């Protein structure tokens, strides 16, 4: 058995807003092994980012609050660590990159200075050494004339280049886990592919585990070993990537897969979309959160919220009362 790096149990995070308490994450459990790549998919607002930010205690508090759960990193619960302890994990052992490279770098600080920060902090090296290391890192992610570009500011880089800088910075201290929160959503299609290829190459070279959050099931298929599907603050299905695509078990996952454009079909197919709106999260759901939009809904679904349980092949887990192949309750 490979080593388990991250083990999140029963994570619950809420936001206290003027309109009421938003139940953003409602008891999420997942794990990540050494060297593994986990894809996390789900529509906007389902709690993907908040889940990952919570693990590193990075949700803004207030208004956010982690109300329950554990996030064990190599056996130690990060949620009970004090500020100094968790700072030694952040950026050194678990790094993050974000959706919008236009806003995730500080606009008034030079790239060189921003890159040097984690290096000097976690590796305890000098400014000069950090500079040299930064040049190597920028070259590693494919930034030409890296030495001359350290003094530049983020607005002098293109979107794709900034995301490369973010990746270089995130990997600078050789973390064991890279959390990529929709790192390609804000980029053009060709640049997206380059960034995905870059991360794949770096994964080969450096061997870190990756959590890749995205809307794009196509990208997940190409990069992940395993996929978690989130809905309304829950993980509702989890499976090795091949099984999920071959045999989706949750009506929501089926809907998501159907909404992918099929490139191999001749006729241009209209995008399938799931009817209805994502759930409002002002109340913690007591019934299946997908029930209002589900084609397979049964009475039971309105009475009790299904829990994530193993079903079908090894490693395939789903939270649904109904067997979608037969249309009957299990």
């Amino acid at each position: 058995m490979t080593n388990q790096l991250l083990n999140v149990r029963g994570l619950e995070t809420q936001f206290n807003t003027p309109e009421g308490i938003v139940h953003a994450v409602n008891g999420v459990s997942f794990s990540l092994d050494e060297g593994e790549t986990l894809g996390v998919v789900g529509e906007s607002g389902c709690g993907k980012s908040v889940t990952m930010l919570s693990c590193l205690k990075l949700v803004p508090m207030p208004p956010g609050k982690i109300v329950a759960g554990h996030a064990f990193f190599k056996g130690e619960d990060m949620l009970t660590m004090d500020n100094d302890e968790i700072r030694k994990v952040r950026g050194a052992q678990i790094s993050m990159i974000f959706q919008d490279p236009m806003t995730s770098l500080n606009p008034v600080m030079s790239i060189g200075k921003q890159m040097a920060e984690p290096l000097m902090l976690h590796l305890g090296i000098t400014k000069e050494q950090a500079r040299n290391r930064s040049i190597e890192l920028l070259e590693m992610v494919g930034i030409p004339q890296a030495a001359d570009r350290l003094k530049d500011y983020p607005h002098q880089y293109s979107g794709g280049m900034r995301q490369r800088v973010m990746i270089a910075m995130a990997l600078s201290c050789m973390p064991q886990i890279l959390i990529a929160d929709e790192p390609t959503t804000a980029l053009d299609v060709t640049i997206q592919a380059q960034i995905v290829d870059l991360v794949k190459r770096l994964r080969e070279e450096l061997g870190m585990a990756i959590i890749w959050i995205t809307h794009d099931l196509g990208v997940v298929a190409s990069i992940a070993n395993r996929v978690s599907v989130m809905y309304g603050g829950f993980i509702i299905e989890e499976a090795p990537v091949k099984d999920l695509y071959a045999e989706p078990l949750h009506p929501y996952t089926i809907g998501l897969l159907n909404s992918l454009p099929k490139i191999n079909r001749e006729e241009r197919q209209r995008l399938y979309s799931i009817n209805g709106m994502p759930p409002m999260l002002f109340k913690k759901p007591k019934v299946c959160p997908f029930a209002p939009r589900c084609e397979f809904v049964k009475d039971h679904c309105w009475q009790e919220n299904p829990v994530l349980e193993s079903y079908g092949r090894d490693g395939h887990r789903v939270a649904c009362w109904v067997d979608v192949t037969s249309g009957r309750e299990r």
Partner: protein
Amino acid sequence: MTNYIIRRLLLVPVLLAGVTLIIFGMLQLLGPVERSALYVVDFPKNEKQIDAVIKRYGLDDPFFVQYWRWLVGVQRPDTQGNIVRDGGILYGDFGYSRTASQEVIDIIKNRFPNTLDLALWTIFPMLSVGIWMGVKAAVNQNKFFDQAARIYSIIGTSFPTFVFGLLLLMLLYANNQWFLPGKMSDWVSILIYSGEFKQYTHLLSIDALLNLRLDIFWDALRHMIMPIITLSYISWATFVRVTRSSMLETLRMDYVITARSKGLKEADVINKHARPNAMLPVVTMMGGSIVGLLGGVVITETVFNYPGIGKAAADAAAQLDVVTILGLAIFTGLILIISNLVVDILYAFIDPRVRLS
């Protein structure tokens, strides 16, 4: 950066032309007859006299002829027959103030140091404390310090200056004379006239320090404290409010989360990443405050009988002394242009997007 500064400096003459054109243009809204009244000391007895004045000063010449003459003055023979220049604001000749019985430029020379003295003692505490409070309030959003700062800034921005000033006068002067209106005590002005006290800068408080006269420094402060408080409480409130909201917005930015995700200490996240970004709108506002303070704070200087530019303007306005008001308006315009220049350069210094564009 150098490029940016040069480009910005090239703008100055354009702005100057604009400001002078507007101010001169406003005066031209009056007809030649009305303007001639500015030059005739007594009420004119007959139309001939008016016509003579209009002719002598060319008050019915085309607009730009008059504007040019106003800028550079005219050449006239003096009593000895030598040709001399008369007027011309470009040469610093702003005209003669009939109510103050001196050249307008001398009013500025006498009064501006007093206004500057007051402004210096207001700006620096205001900037440092206002920004400090705003940042601290934002970082401790909704906690006690934040609530207190918010209440203060609401009261501060809604309490009228003259009421506040009069209250201060009542409490700190009328009741027990801790602090005094005016600029200095008699014994200080006697000392200054005697020439024993060297005026290096003409800012009384600074000169007092340079002369190592703490008694005079204390006297200057005693006269300035009430106007300083009056000027500060509003601007502090505004600075706290703007800094706080800018900081709150910045703290929600992605790059702040990036900074935390790198493992930086919270103090570094705030001081190195959030605060420099949050300062950008504050710097812009600072420009306005500085112009306000240097252009003469009319109400405050009047309430405390403080002999600055603002008081001079108020006195001139009360006596319909158009020449003086015009001169002071031009001077204020000049200050506006210079402070905006300074603020823009400062802004570029903080924000590479401006500097390197």
